[in-house]
C-alpha cells in the first residue's frame, strides 16, 4: 500500500498541484491590470524587441551581471546546469529516445556532478554576507537544501547505488500512459523520487515561481512606445479645482494693487 501510494498516487497528486498551481499563479497575475507604463530603460520599441529582451534576460541574466559578477557566475552556472540535467532526464519520459536527448547524456551527467558547487556557493553566500543573511527566510534555505538533496541523491544513484534504469523508465512511462506499475526500487531511489515530488508540490507556492512570473514583469515586458496612448483600465475621473482654476479672478484685487504700486 505504501509503495502504491508513493509510486502511483503521489506522482499524480504532485504533478496536479504543480500544473494547477502554476496556472493559478499565472491567471492571478495575468488578470491584474498594469495601470501605468513603468518600463525600465533602455527599453525596446517593438514587440519583437521585447521578446528578444525577455529571452536575453531569461538566458543569461544581464541585470544580475551588471549588479554582482560573482553572484551572476553562481546563478548562471546553477541555471545552466539545471537545464542540462533536466534535458538528460528526458530520456526517462520519451520513447523512443530522440537523437538530441542521446547527445546531451554525457553533458547532463557532468552537469549533475557539478550542480552541488553553485548550490553550495549560493548557500554559503546567504550565510556569510551579512546583508544576505539579514534578508534570508526559511523558504530561501528550504529551496536551496531541497535542490541540494535532490542532486546529491541523484549523483549517488548514478555513481554508487546504480539503479536499474529500465525499471525507472517503465515506472515513468507507465505513469504517463495511465498504466502505472510499482517497481522494486532501492531506498535511495525512493528518496530521490520523493524529493522531486516535494519540489513539484512546493514549486507553485514559493519563490521558485520567479522562473515564469518574470515574463509578466511590467518593467521588463513593456515597450517604450511613448507616442501611443497608454490606457489605464481602472482609471477614474478627478475633479478640476474650479476655485483655483479661476485664480486670476480670485486674486484680481491683489493683482490690481500690484499694478497700482508699480505705477507709483
Amino acid at each position, binding site marked *: 500500500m505504501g509503495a502504491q501510494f508513493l509510486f502511483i498516487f503521489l506522482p499524480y497528486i504532485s504533478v496536479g498541484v504543480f500544473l494547477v498551481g502554476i496556472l493559478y499563479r499565472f491567471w492571478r497575475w495575468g488578470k491584474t491590470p498594469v495601470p501605468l507604463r513603468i518600463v525600465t530603460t533602455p527599453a525596446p520599441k517593438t514587440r519583437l524587441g521585447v521578446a528578444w529582451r525577455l529571452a536575453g534576460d531569461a538566458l543569461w541574466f544581464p*541585470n*544580475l551581471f551588471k549588479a*554582482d559578477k560573482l553572484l551572476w557566475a553562481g546563478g548562471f552556472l546553477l541555471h545552466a546546469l539545471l537545464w542540462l540535467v533536466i534535458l538528460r532526464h528526458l530520456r526517462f519520459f520519451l520513447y523512443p529516445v530522440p537523437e538530441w536527448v542521446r547527445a546531451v547524456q554525457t553533458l547532463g551527467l557532468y552537469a549533475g556532478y557539478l550542480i552541488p558547487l553553485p548550490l553550495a556557493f549560493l548557500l554559503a553566500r546567504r550565510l556569510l554576507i551579512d546583508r544576505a543573511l539579514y534578508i534570508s527566510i526559511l523558504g530561501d534555505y528550504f529551496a536551496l537544501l531541497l535542490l541540494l538533496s535532490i542532486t546529491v541523491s541523484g549523483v549517488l544513484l548514478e555513481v554508487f547505488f546504480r539503479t536499474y534504469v529500465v525499471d525507472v523508465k517503465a515506472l515513468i512511462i507507465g505513469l504517463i500512459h495511465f498504466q502505472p506499475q510499482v517497481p522494486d526500487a532501492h531506498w535511495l531511489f525512493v528518496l530521490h523520487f520523493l524529493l522531486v515530488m516535494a519540489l513539484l508540490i512546493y514549486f507553485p507556492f514559493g519563490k521558485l515561481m520567479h522562473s515564469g512570473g*518574470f515574463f509578466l514583469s511590467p518593467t521588463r515586458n513593456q515597450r517604450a512606445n511613448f507616442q501611443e496612448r497608454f490606457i489605464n483600465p481602472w482609471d477614474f475621473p478627478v475633479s478640476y479645482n474650479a476655485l*483655483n482654476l479661476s485664480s486670476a479672478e480670485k486674486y484680481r484685487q491683489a493683482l490690481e494693487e500690484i499694478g497700482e504700486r508699480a505705477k507709483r
Partner: protein
Amino acid sequence: MRGLVPIPEIRIGASKHQVCHRAKGKDMAKIDLPKQRLENWKEAMLQKMAEVLERYRSVRLFLDICVKCEACADKCQFFLGTGDPKNMPVARADLFRKVYKRYFTLGGKIWGRANEAEELDETVLQEWVTYFYQCSECRRCAVFCPYGIDTAEITMAAREIMAAAGVATKYVTEVVAKVYDTGNNLGIWPAAWKDNCAFLEQDLKDTEGLDVKFPVDAVGAEVLLIPPSADNFVNTDTMIGYAKMFHAAGISWTTSTYCNEGGNFGLFLNYANLKKANNRIIGAARQLKVKKIYWGE
C-alpha cells in the same frame, strides 16, 4: 562613482529615528485624505491594500517573485548612506511583503512567522512610515534586479495605503495642497507670480535694454509654458532664457497662474493626487486656449 562608495556593514536600526513630520490636518483635508490617522486605520489599510493588489500587477508580482538574491541591496543610496538593513530595497519591500503574506497568501496564513508573515500592528506601521519615506523612488534597484523588480512601485503602493488611513508626511501633503491653492509647489501666489514677471521684464529692460515680455494668463497665446516654479523664484536666469528664446523665435507664449509647475508631488502620495495635479496642465491649456504646451521638469 565606481569603487568610491564602500558598502557599509549593516547596522540594525541606524536610521529608524529619521522619521518625517506628520501631515497637518488642514493640508490633508485639502487633498481629499482623512485629516488624521483613522480610528480603524488597520482595517482601512488592509482594505486599501486589497484594492492596490487588484489594481497593480507590478505590486503583486514583485512581492511574489523576489528570490532575495541580494543583488539590489548595495545599490540603494539610502542603504549605502545609512547602513540600516531595512533600507536595502529587498528589505524595504519585505516590510510590505510580510503584511501581504499574513493577510493575502495561503503560505503566510499557514506558516505565519516562519514564512515571514506578520500582523499589521503599530510597530509595523511605524516601520512603514519610517522606511517607505526613506525611499526616493529613483528605481535604481529595478535596473539591477534580474526580474526588474521595482521597489519604487512597492513604496508608492505603501504610501497610497497609508494615505488612505490618514497617515502621510508634512512635506509631501503640504506641497500637494499648495499646488491646488496656488498652482505651484513653492506656494507662489498668482499675484506674486505676476509681480515677478513684471520685475524680470523691467530688469531686462534696465540691464540689457531688451523689450522682452513675460506674459501671464494671456488667453489665446500659441504656447503655454509650464516651467518648474523655482525658475520664477530663484533660478530666474532660466526664466529669462525662456522669454528670450520665445522672443527671438517670435512665438506668442504665456504662463498660467493656475498651473505654473510641472513637478508633481502626487507621485509621492497617491494616484488620485498624482492625476489631479497633472490634470491642471490640461485645465490651464483649455482655460487659456493655447495650441501647444511646453513642459519643463
